[in-house]
């Protein structure tokens, strides 16, 4: 217990320390005036002028269309995979609905996988589709955050920066160098990195064992730094080749939080109010700790249904104990709980244990965090989502005291509130609407791996994960059907672009405004009081929206567990 606590403290302390490294680095990326030679060459190839100021509409249009082109390229490669050279295992091309689902998933930074990596993707596809889309979707999110913060930090401005510059710099100066170095550490720890497809060995007892290998390490790095989450292997970061040691597990966790936490620093730094950044960081951190405590407590206690069977789940010096179904021994309950909390907080969606086998309250945590979608959140979008809620908070508080709400010295008016509400509602509508639709489809039952409330949770989890661009799953659920491939694919697109684009609009509108001097009625947004209010609004809005759905799934499952009902 004390030993577990030490792991939490050390990991979270390192995470906080890294903010002071990555934060200033990322701020420079968004603000440095000069372009290096590789970047200049890139702009020339693209035929763009890096000095061109872009309105939010142009910024958003370029973002959307370049994403669409990348998505299309990925789709084509997956459709002709079998015809491409280099795969000794001859894995076949993906079907149209599956390929659509896959590329929609990876371009939106979701990484939902309706396929299993080792059987359906060649090493070329793992690199030229998966690693490629993982990198560019992360760069897109971080770039959008750059444009967004720039918009909020300006006054009377017509532009929010240049998308190509943000995107290119994030890729070249942040993602690729970090990933390259980390990949080498990963290989040192035992992750494969090769173009060979498989190796066959004869085990100690004389059986044939086929080991699937490939360019795993280069995918794992961007998978976590980019808050992507899609695994090289079906069982994702639970697979020993994706996560061979507790050190790689820890580095995965730190990678996921690297950019989302640094962006709070960037935010405070660029609007010239460091305290604002830290008050956002504190909001993230407080919610994170609460969820971590919940999942750790539930998993540490184990599965009460196993006690009558004489199963020892108590933690001792020689036994990690806890609810170990679907978990890996090298991580134990502490590392697993930290991973579960992080992967759904930072909406990565990589898993080092099977979330379907978590205890009901342990399983509630990932669903709830994805519903809130802003406990750190994914690269770029997490901060944007939190600011969405911050604007909602000043609006609600402003209404309560009868004043025009202000945020960062600018009046918050009807137009931006409409965009904010569009972003908030699109998210909830996609999760609840699609879940309701799937629940009335008779064929849904065929996809379930568990009956009772856990079966409902599988469906709810799927659409929450898709909409929140997380990508993890209650993985027994068979989502590879035309209905689920299509609707979850749509949920991912809605969840990504219908929250990103309205918030770029908010940034554009706010950039054009002049600042008003702070008066006695101004609510300071860089105080612990505001952090408290913000967390409160996030939890209340999230609670009012999603609690009924959670009550039908994990909450009733928890009560049934206490009464000993099985399915």
């Amino acid at each position, binding site marked *: 217990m004390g030993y577990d606590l030490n792991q939490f403290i050390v990991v979270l302390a390192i995470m906080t320390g890294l903010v002071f490294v990555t934060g200033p680095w990322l701020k420079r990326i968004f603000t440095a005036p000069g372009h290096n030679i590789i970047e200049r060459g890139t702009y020339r190839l693209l035929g763009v002028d890096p000095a061109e100021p872009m309105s939010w509409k142009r910024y958003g249009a370029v973002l959307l269309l370049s994403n669409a*082109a990348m998505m299309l390229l990925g789709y084509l490669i997956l459709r002709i995979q079998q015809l491409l050279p280099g795969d000794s295992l001859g894995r076949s091309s993906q079907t149209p609905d599956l390929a659509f689902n896959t590329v929609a998933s990876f371009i939106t930074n979701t990484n939902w996988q309706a396929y299993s990596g080792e059987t359906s993707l060649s090493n070329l596809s793992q690199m030229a589709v998966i690693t490629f889309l993982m990198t560019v979707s992360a760069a897109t999110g971080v770039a959008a955050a750059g444009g967004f913060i720039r918009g909020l930090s300006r006054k009377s401005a017509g532009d929010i920066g240049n998308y190509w510059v943000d995107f290119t710099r994030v890729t070249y100066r942040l993602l690729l160098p970090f990933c390259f170095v980390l990949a080498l550490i990963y290989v040192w720890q035992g992750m494969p990195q090769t173009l060979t497809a498989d190796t066959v*060995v004869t085990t*100690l007892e004389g059986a044939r064992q086929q080991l699937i290998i490939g360019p795993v390490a280069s995918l794992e790095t961007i998978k976590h730094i980019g808050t992507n989450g899609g695994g090289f292997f079906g069982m994702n970061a639970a697979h020993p080749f994706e996560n061979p040691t507790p050190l790689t597990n820890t580095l995965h966790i730190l990678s996921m939080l690297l950019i989302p936490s640094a962006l709070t620093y960037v935010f405070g730094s660029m609007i010239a109010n460091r305290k604002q950044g830290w008050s956002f960081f504190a909001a993230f951190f407080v919610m994170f700790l609460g969820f971590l405590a919940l999942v750790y407590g539930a998993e540490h206690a184990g599965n009460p249904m196993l006690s009558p069977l004489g199963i020892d789940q108590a933690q001792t010096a020689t036994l990690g104990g806890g609810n170990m179904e679907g978990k890996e021994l090298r991580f134990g309950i502490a590392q697993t709980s930290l991973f579960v909390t992080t992967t759904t907080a930072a909406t990565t969606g990589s898993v080092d244990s099977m979330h379907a086998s978590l205890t009901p309250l342990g399983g509630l945590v990932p669903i709830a965090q994805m519903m809130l979608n802003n406990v750190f959140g994914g690269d770029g979008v997490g901060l944007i989502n939190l600011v969405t809620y911050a604007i909602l908070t000043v609006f609600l508080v402003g209404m309560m005291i009868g004043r025009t709400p202000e945020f960062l010295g600018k009046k918050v008016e009807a137009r931006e509130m409409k965009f904010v509400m569009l972003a908030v509602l699109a998210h909830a509508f996609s999760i609840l609407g699609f879940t309701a639709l799937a629940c009335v489809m008779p064929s849904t039952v065929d996809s379930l791996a568990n009956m009772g409330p856990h079966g409902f949770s599988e469906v709810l989890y799927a659409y929450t994960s898709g909409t929140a661009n997380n990508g993890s799953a209650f993985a027994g659920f068979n989502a590879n059907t035309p209905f689920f491939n299509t609707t979850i694919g749509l949920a991912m697109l809605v969840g990504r672009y219908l929250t990103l684009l309205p918030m770029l609009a908010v940034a554009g509108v706010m950039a054009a405004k002049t600042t008003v001097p702070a008066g006695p009625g101004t609510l300071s947004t860089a105080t612990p009081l505001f952090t408290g209010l913000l967390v409160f609004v996030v939890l209340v809005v999230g609670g009012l929206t999603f609690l009924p759905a959670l009550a039908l799934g994990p909450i009733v499952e928890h009560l049934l*567990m206490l009464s000993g009902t099985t399915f």
Partner: protein
Amino acid sequence: MHNDQSTSADLSATSAFKGIARPVLVSALLFMVVTGLAYPLATTGVANLLFPSQAQGSLIERNGQAIGSRQIGQYFARPEYFHSRPSATSGPDPQDPSKTVDQPYNAGASAASNQGVLSKKLLTAVEQRAIAYRQENGLAANAAVPVDAVTASGSGLDPHISIANANIQAQRVARARGVAVDRVLALINENVDRPQFGLFGDPRVNVLALNLALDAAAAPARPAAQ
């Protein structure tokens, strides 16, 4: 009121899509080549120079033959070997490849049970595994069984078991090999993977490494069948 908000909006409405086709198309190709080919290929090159063994899957050789990967668990059924955790992986039926059958530690297709805590399937499986475990290891019918010995891992390829699990199995292994239990327990102790930096992860035993050490130290097992 300033009117720069409306003028900039008017401007952007007409110019949002201007000259956008070329950069959009070129960017897809260029960044695919840079991030999807150049980056992973460069990593592959450097990684194979620095860590050639790990990069190829951390293979372990015995008598010049690859017998497994240090990272990947194997299925053990014989009494003279330590047994790994249960595994939920499956594979094609050797008699009829169109069907799938249970195939523990099939590294070609990682898999988990994905059963929730209330699942009858899970509870029945755990109950049966516990009974089998007690019988194999000569335990009383109500003896406590370490949780890792009766639950399937996330990957189905977990290379480790708990120390408690290994200590219980030591009796059986020692009997099957005709060596003293103390000797086997000492081997377990030598093969414990401790937390990294004394901090990260739970202490555990790598089953393949332990069984190899066992073969090397105490009377080798019968030669592999088939």
